[in-house]
């Protein structure tokens, strides 16, 4: 009753398009022609893309050498606890039938190494790696502190399990002359990792900065001595370390190790011929290790999968397209048939 007393006009709803659900709008209508055209176009696109991808990935040269078995001796040696950190080198000769043109990249590849385990992936301290507070080991369980209570730097399971085999590629011109293929270890990391995410503590002398900390249990050298050749490549900003710390998504992964320095014999890339890998085998695990040499294409190093997937998708799209056309035409016939009746 009280309501009636209110101003009549104020109770009349506003006549706006929004309130009256009359907003101007377009109805998207999927007519037969539109849909069929779209299917045709997408199918064609996928097919073309698939073929390009397959061709391009074929053009890339890749050689992969699994050294798990060849270096099994070293692994066996290390199983003996006494020889735990004894260096062991094995050499793997191989023949490169065709030359690898252009930039050649070297990767190490691990099979069955679970870098994506939940507890593993979390076992790191980004604030420590940022160099601000190297004693910050809170997320690093179970590799936070050594037995005597000093913090591990860099802490955590990821750092601890760092890949530390050394792989050296030699070009065997003949049985006598073995040329060490020049490799660059720079620019194998992301710029942001090297310059933002990983920072050494701001101290002139790294070993001072790392004072009061312990090296990871599996490491033979502390972090500030990782690269003996280049003092600027030590500590947290060591390239190999950074690469390792960028954990892989799947248990089988390859990681960037070195890239070819195109000087001397190798300005054109790797010439065909005999090569050998000299691997300093440090640790073994249940999976397998391999080393990969490869060149890249316009899109980077895509495998065959994407090319095939595109081709199959394109083919399927066209298949569906044809069946839809058939169904549509049959329906039309049926409709006209009914109309005639």
């Amino acid at each position, binding site marked *: 009753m009280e309501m009636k007393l209110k101003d009549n006009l104020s109770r*009349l709803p506003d006549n706006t398009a929004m309130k*009256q659900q009359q907003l101007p*709008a377009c109805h998207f209508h999927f007519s037969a022609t539109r849909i069929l055209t779209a299917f045709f176009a997408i199918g064609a696109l996928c097919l073309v893309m698939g073929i390009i991808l397959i061709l391009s990935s074929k053009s890339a040269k890749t050689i992969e050498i699994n050294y798990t078995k060849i270096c099994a001796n070293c692994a066996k040696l290390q199983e003996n606890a006494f020889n735990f950190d004894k260096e062991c080198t094995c050499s793997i000769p191989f023949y490169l039938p065709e030359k690898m043109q252009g930039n050649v990249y070297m990767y190490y590849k691990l099979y069955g190494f679970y870098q994506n385990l939940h507890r593993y992936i979390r076992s790191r301290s980004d604030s420590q790696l940022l160099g601000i507070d190297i004693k910050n080991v809170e997320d690093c369980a179970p590799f936070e502190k050594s037995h005597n209570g000093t913090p591990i730097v860099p802490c955590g399971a990821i750092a601890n399990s760092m890949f530390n085999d050394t792989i050296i590629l030699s070009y065997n011109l003949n049985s006598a002359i073995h040329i060490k293929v020049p490799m660059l270890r720079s620019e194998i990391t*992301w710029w942001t990792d090297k310059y933002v995410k990983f920072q050494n503590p701001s101290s002139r002398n790294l070993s001072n900065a790392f004072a009061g900390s312990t090296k990871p249990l599996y490491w033979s050298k502390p972090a500030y001595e990782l690269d003996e050749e280049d003092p600027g490549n030590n500590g947290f900003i060591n390239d190999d370390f950074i690469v390792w710390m960028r954990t892989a998504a799947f248990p089988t992964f390859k990681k*960037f190790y070195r890239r070819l320095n195109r000087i001397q014999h190798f300005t054109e890339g790797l010439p065909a011929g005999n090569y050998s890998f000299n691997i300093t085998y440090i640790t073994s695990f249940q999976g397998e290790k391999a080393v990969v040499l490869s060149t890249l294409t316009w899109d980077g190093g895509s495998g065959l999968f994407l090319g095939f997937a595109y081709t199959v998708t394109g083919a399927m799209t066209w298949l569906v397209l044809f069946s839809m056309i058939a169904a549509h035409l049959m329906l039309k016939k049926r409709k006209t048939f009914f109309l005639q009746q």
Partner: protein
Amino acid sequence: MICLHIALQGSTESLLRRSERKYKEIVIVDQDNRIHTSKYNVLTFLPINLFEQFQRVANAYFLFLLILQLIPEISSLTWFTTIVPLVLVITMTAVKDATDDYFRHKSDNQVNNRQSEVLIDGKLQNEKWMNVKVGDIIKLENNQFVAADLLLLSSSEPHGLCYIETAELDGETNLKVRHALSVTSELGADISRLAKFDGIVDCEAPNNKLDKFTGVLSWIDSKYSLNNEKIILRGCVLRNTSWCFGMVIFAGPDTKLMQNSGKTKFKRTSIDRLMNTLVLWIFGFLVCLGIILAIGNSIWEQQVGDQFRAFLFWNEEEKNFVFSGFLTFWSYVIILNTVVPISLYVSVEVIRLGHSYFINWDRKMYYAGKATPAEVRTTTLNEELGQIEYVFSDKTGTLTQNIMTFKKCSINGKIYGEVHEEPSQKIEMIKKKEHADFSANPKADSKFQFFDHNLIESIKLGDPKVHEFLRLLALCHTVMPEENSTGQLIYQVQSPDEGALVTAARNLGFIFKSRTPETITIEELGTLVTYQLLAFLDFNNIRKRMSVIVRNPEGQIKLYSKGADTILFEKLHPSNEDILSLTSDHLSEFAGEGLRTLAIAYRDLDDMYFKQWYKMLEDANIATDERDERIAGLYEEIERDLMLLGATAVEDELQEGVIETVTNLSLANIKLWVLTGDKQETAINIGYACNMLTDDMNEVFVIAGNTAGEVLEELRKAKENVFGESRSFPNGHAVCEKKQQLELCSIVEETVTGDYALIINGHSLAYALESDAKNDLLELACMCKTVVCCRVTPLQKAQVVELVKKHRNAVTLAIGDGANDVSMIKSAHIGVGISGQEGLQAVLASDYSFAQFKFLQRLLLVHGRWSYFRMCKFLCYFFYKNFAFTLVHFWFGFFCGFSAQTVYDQWFITLFNIVYTSLPVLAMGVFDQDVSEQNSLDCPQLYEPGQLNLLFNKRKFFICVAHGIYTSFALFFIPYGAFYDVAGADGQHIADYQSFAVTMATSLVIVVSVQIALDTSYWTVINHIFIWGSIATYFSILFAMHSKGIFEIFPNQFPFVGNAGHSLTEKLIWLVVLLTTVTSVMPVVAFRFLKVDLYPTLTDQIRQRQKAQKKARLPRSRRPQARRSSSRRSGYAFAHQEGYGELITSGKNMRAKKSPSAPGLEKTPYNSTSWIENLCKKTTDTVNSFSQDKTVKL
């Protein structure tokens, strides 16, 4: 049994004595009249509200998840992924609850602060309602609302009578009489004596029975029994009584009104229930996934991890792999919980709220006449409006306006009041045409309209039959005249029909002026004539007629009678044959137009004959045995050999657009049942008037048995009748199990051909609702196109609704305007109140309210349909989206050693549902339209998918889930394949976990955005903004969170620094995203195209048509344009109880000044001494029968 004793000492203090069997105690009653409907105050809000919120399963579940996440061993997600949405939801709900409660506080305050006059310290003082206490004496004035339940002490009217209107309580608009005890009515308006009143009232405990009160008043050494007739209840309005005094018996929450209001049941929609089931299933599914992954984890730990652990976690103790699996299970429960994200519940509420606002804002549901827009009072039921199968409607005030207008009459074989124009032109014609001119008549009621000058001419010419006709109308009725302050004549009518007739006579020059118990004075064309009222042969349901016997100034004795034609025509003198056939034709014509007709007849009586008859009547009156039968016989005896004068036609005006609405609803396959407290004839009349009943119907069953057996037999007979005609069913329907019953019912419904209608009255309904007849009733009612229940009590209305709700498993809607509809409105799935009428009870109890019945079709066919459509689309998409989003973790589990590692960044998981994908789907849920509102109205068949629950059901759910699973599969395995052996453009590795997470997240956001773009059929600006905006937001937030700045502040929270920039510049990643999008979307498009192309639904066709922009609407094939001619029906619509004949003839309701001075001269046709007793007896009879009904049915 508990009694309350209210003792009055002085008047301000009172005592309550509660006596139980064993002990007596005296308590001072301090019950004040304040009412609380609010739930919280400032202090209690937070604890109570939080407690209430965590009682909801969903909230409790998320709290449980939050606790799980705080356990470090199993926490696979950080706590903020759950707490951010949870806090958001709880805050939003709390704000909504607080606002609601604020408005309740406001309305409480408004009611509590109303003023009333209370007798304090021997003086009348204004006091707020909330300060009125039990035992106070209150003075009420005309047209005031009653503040509390009062014992009537005295009033301005003679004999302590007062009139009240109980519309707010029971929906009846006719006046009711209450009378004070004679001892207290003597107190009058004497303040000093009233102030000294110190009676003690013993009464029953507060209860919700509106029509029953028992108590005893002890005052000055004597005891007086009290019943309902002495009580005025809160919520009534005092009418026609300038003042009255009453003592407060029950105040505040004890009043019958408040006791009746009851707690509103929390209503849920069927989608809600389905959603709950589905959510349970999903939890089951989730647990299964958890178990699979946990087993996987155990195996992995044993086979691989064992050795692997030695390498990675060598200093940890050897762990039990079963225990590890157990922990993994909980971790996966946490990760996979996003299948049912908390935002689902919030989004559903937001969408419903949006739809509610659309209803509130709809100008086409705004009634200018009463300045009332439609109002949504429960915002959580909207989509159910699109699934209604049964509509239960009240009649008075809902279908009809409850305004009677005298439309036509037939006098001596001649029709007056015809309008010859075509109906379509009628409106214009009315404007042009001059009304019959009543300006010559100063007493004319200005509102009266009559369009035939012929009648005026005839009156002027002095046609004796016409005069006699009008004279009869002015004499034969129970109307009470009254003059208001400006000297205008006002009629107090008991039923609007009578009012219409007397007003018509008045405007045509036969003005009913005044009455005393033995005279009636009318002004016949300017001259005052007083008739002696010799006898009053009152109306009742069996007689269906009323008569008066009067002596005119010339000394002639005449019997004037009006009544149902069927009854009256049997009583006519044989000489009436010619006029009878003419009138009969006219009556058919009137009835065909849906008018309520009465036949009018008179008889000249011989003086001697009358005296003999009167003597016999007096004898009969004092007889002790078979009194009623003897009187009835005598009435029969004198009401014969009548001379037919003609017939009247009164229109019970339907509300605007009712016929169209009823037709449209029935085209939409919505069954309309009319449940009315009104009489059978009236209800049937209205049924015909709004085309619910037609003469084309094969049969109209009327169930009016008086015993259980009779009713059962009638029901069975009717059923057999239907089965017999459709010849498809044997008599195997007698005993059926409930389930079979249901099936049978639906089968029957389809096989029965022809239209049937069922009309059942309240008395029979009471029996029919008993268990053994219930099934028969239901089965029969289901087969009938129209069901009309008349003379049903509010409780029965609710029972009928419950019956259909329970056994038919259908969605019901109840619509009504009065307090008598409250129970039905509350028990139906959706209650609609017609607002703007006198009472607000129905509106307050309702979920939706608007001013006109016709808005119902817009509410259901447009808003309801859209709501349902949108909600279903929303749910389908939402489940799809979250399955696609979440199941990726399941696939990933197989590649990460089942270690409960998430695929995405934690922030992405937190924000995905509330930021990245919430708005586009909300926009679709709020704005989407499949067909335009015009098309939904033009083609009511579009409503059917909702009734059949086609747009979202378990099957649809499984399709959505399958779609989601497929998408998650594509989303995961395409990047997996592509990342297997991949390097970035500059040789750097991009197959790292973080890049994978970013790729997946980007693909997911793009895939679900493309999907919503395909799902949205109505692209408004808002949709554009939201869809494009969401993608833009995703990328900007992604880059922000992967930026250097935020990383340096929180290095541990945002470890993805630089990832977006790095990954999204790789061509390969975009190739993956593109392929993922194509493979996840194209199959759906193909599937939908084929479905629409091969098996188009009606909606698809209409859309196509709409698209083609052909303005041609669907042919309204079955919509009847004109009313069919109908059989004749007669309505004699008096009040439910017997008329006030006795009251009139006894003169008790006359003004004191007019009451007879000398008893000797008084000519009392009845022994009137006990009229009050009679009246009481009648009322208590009805009350008793009512309460019996109740007990029987309960």
